């Protein structure tokens, strides 16, 4: 199919003549050999970086699927992505979802930030378009829908998520902390949690603190220090952490705050066994490593990570590096990539592609093990619609390279803890 050129006329057709579109899908064109999927991420605005990574990851996956013959059980139908940009605004999550649905997409994927994702989820329920959340961690997004289905307010759940939730992130992080300390034969006592006080950071911190309380390990969270994101200065926050005499600093950063936090920790010469974080996306990026260099050495952080023991992952990561201009195949690109493959798997198994409920039936019975990310098992969806096997991996920056070090089955190198004294 030729690239759809947007003219004013087609826009008008898309809007004013929507009734026609709904009645006779795509008149004047041959019966499509494509299945359209709406892929919506924030590619401009404050979260443009991860959003752009997601879009590219999804596109690469779709290209790969199409190159391999499309959805074979459906006559090799090709996937066509209709992309949208939320600009991190919930209203655009909804508008863009409406737009792509109007253009004939029969599944949705998105959308990184939880606010826009929830707006998309409500639309998915309302319009009966299955949504696979590739990334978005706020627990209520799926849980709320599951509850309303359970309470009988709605018939079918159209919203599923292949990504760790805030609470599962926390549980996993606390578990890894315990295991790492045990493995290293170290027994830190005092942990200071430092986090960016935005949606992502607060979600992670709450999950981490709740899991810590539940697990009641031998180490203590002696202080929790949130900062406004993006910060302009973190020196006082770090001084405050120092005053709490920590053995371990557990940071939750965004890329912007990481650029301030790690140099500051080094500058203030805090005596630490190490820096072990429950989650800092983007820390492993080439740009961050170049800007932070030695400040990142030995830093451990728990992030959803690709399984680089899988040779296919390395090939995809290499291709991704080329197409993105040197970026790491990471949480964002990786989960969007996997998300598209999960969708392809669902489409292969769905009885019909015309009926959303048939797609949902296939979604519910998903048992997919072809993902490139590190999972605890195959991709499945529990009663909430979440994948309990979506987990994070503990990675460590060793010789300026991010390496998976925990859990053991994912580890490519042995972790270093406590960090050597400078």
């Amino acid at each position, binding site marked *: 199919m030729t690239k759809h050129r947007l003219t004013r006329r087609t826009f008008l057709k898309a809007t004013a003549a929507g009734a026609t579109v709904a009645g006779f899908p795509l008149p004047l064109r041959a019966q499509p050999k494509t299945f359209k999927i709406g892929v919506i991420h924030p590619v401009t605005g404050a979260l443009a*970086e991860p959003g752009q990574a997601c879009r590219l990851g999804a596109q690469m996956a779709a290209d790969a699927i199409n190159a391999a013959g499309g959805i074979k059980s459906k006559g090799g139908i090709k996937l066509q992505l209709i992309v949208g940009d939320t600009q991190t605004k919930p209203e655009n999550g909804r508008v863009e979802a409406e737009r792509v649905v109007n253009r004939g997409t029969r599944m949705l994927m998105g959308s990184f930030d939880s606010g826009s994702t929830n707006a998309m989820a409500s639309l998915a329920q309302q319009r009966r378009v299955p949504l696979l959340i590739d990334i978005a961690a706020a627990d209520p997004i799926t849980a709320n829908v599951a509850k309303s289905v359970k309470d009988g307010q709605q018939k079918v759940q159209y919203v599923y998520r292949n990504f760790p939730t805030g609470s599962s992130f926390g549980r996993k992080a606390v578990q890894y902390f315990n295991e790492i300390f045990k493995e290293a034969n170290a027994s830190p006592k005092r942990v200071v949690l430092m986090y960016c006080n935005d949606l992502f950071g607060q979600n992670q911190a709450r999950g981490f603190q709740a899991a810590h309380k539940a697990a009641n390990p031998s180490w203590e969270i002696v202080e929790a220090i949130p*900062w406004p994101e993006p910060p302009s200065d973190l*020196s*006082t926050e770090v001084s405050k952490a120092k005053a709490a005499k920590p053995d371990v600093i557990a940071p939750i950063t965004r890329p912007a705050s990481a*650029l301030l936090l790690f140099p500051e920790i080094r500058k203030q010469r805090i005596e630490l066994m190490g820096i072990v974080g429950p989650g800092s996306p983007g820390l492993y990026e080439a740009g961050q490593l170049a800007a932070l260099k030695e400040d990142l050495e030995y830093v451990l952080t728990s992030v959803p990570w690709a399984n680089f023991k899988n040779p296919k992952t390395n090939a995809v990561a290499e291709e991704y590096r080329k197409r993105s201009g040197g970026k790491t195949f990471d949480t964002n690109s990786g989960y969007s990539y996997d998300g598209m493959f999960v969708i392809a798997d669902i489409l292969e198994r769905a009885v019909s592609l015309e009926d959303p409920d048939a797609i949902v039936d296939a979604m519910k019975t998903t048992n997919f093990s072809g993902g490139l990310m590190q999972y605890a098992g195959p991709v499945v969806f529990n009663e909430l619609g979440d994948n309990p096997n979506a987990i994070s991996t503990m990675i460590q920056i060793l010789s300026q390279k991010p390496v998976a070090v925990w859990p053991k089955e994912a580890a490519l190198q042995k972790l270093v803890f406590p960090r050597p004294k400078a």
Partner: protein
Amino acid sequence: MDVTLVLQGLLSGLLFGGVYSLMAVGLTLIFGVMRVVNFAHGDMMVWGMYLSYLLATRAGIDPYLSFVVSAAALFALGLLVQRGLVDRVIDAPHEMQILLMLGVALVLENLALVAFGPEPTRVRSPLGAATLWLGPVFVDLARLVTFVVAVLLTVALSLFLYRTDLGRTIRAAADNTYGALVIGIDVRRVYAVAFGVGAACVGAAGALVSSILPFQPPTGLSLSVTSFNIVIIGGMGSLLGAFIGGLLVSVAESLGAVFLKPSLKELVSFSLLIVILLFRPAGLFGKRTS
């Protein structure tokens, strides 16, 4: 409360104030002369930062040298914005000026996104993690240098404004436009130069703090908000006000982080702003305009 922590907070805040002062100087200059509120201030500054980033990563030029280039580039931009846009709406209603500068801000931010991509970055400081320890508290050398530069820039600008003919002409046009016309000052030209000089300060400030503040295209908005905050507190149009206001806001936020949950520290500076607005709207060092 830990005395060391309070002392350290005070010291760090004071030194970081140099960064804030640098941020505010160009804004106050532009407002002081033209009574134009530059809502694109932060985005201009981000461009100054990216220019120094380019020069540092591509040509290996230190920001402490390359700020001259950023300043020159922003001078040209300022001149252009003033001559091409602001000059045409100088008599338009207030809200139209705001809309205009919002438009400029949007264009600058997204041009940066197109040109440099979305990831946050920071120029590696030539001073790295250099610190000076005075007993239990430390001085961050990069901040100390920035602080000194802020003092120097404020002094240099004051000398320019108070000791050179061009500077005096700018002040005269700001003080009494009609009076300036009467003695034969080409006020439009002076405005363009003043906007250019203000923008050049913004560019220089961007370059000089690019190794301290991380930045990405949307950073401009928060830089603008913080700079407005400082300039109102210090007094619109006052260089000394911008300098002291910067220190004040920085110390207030730093101590806020010491005594409160740090994520609430900006409440302190915004509350300070409100108090100043209500009780001394001209700012600490501003002149009362009738």
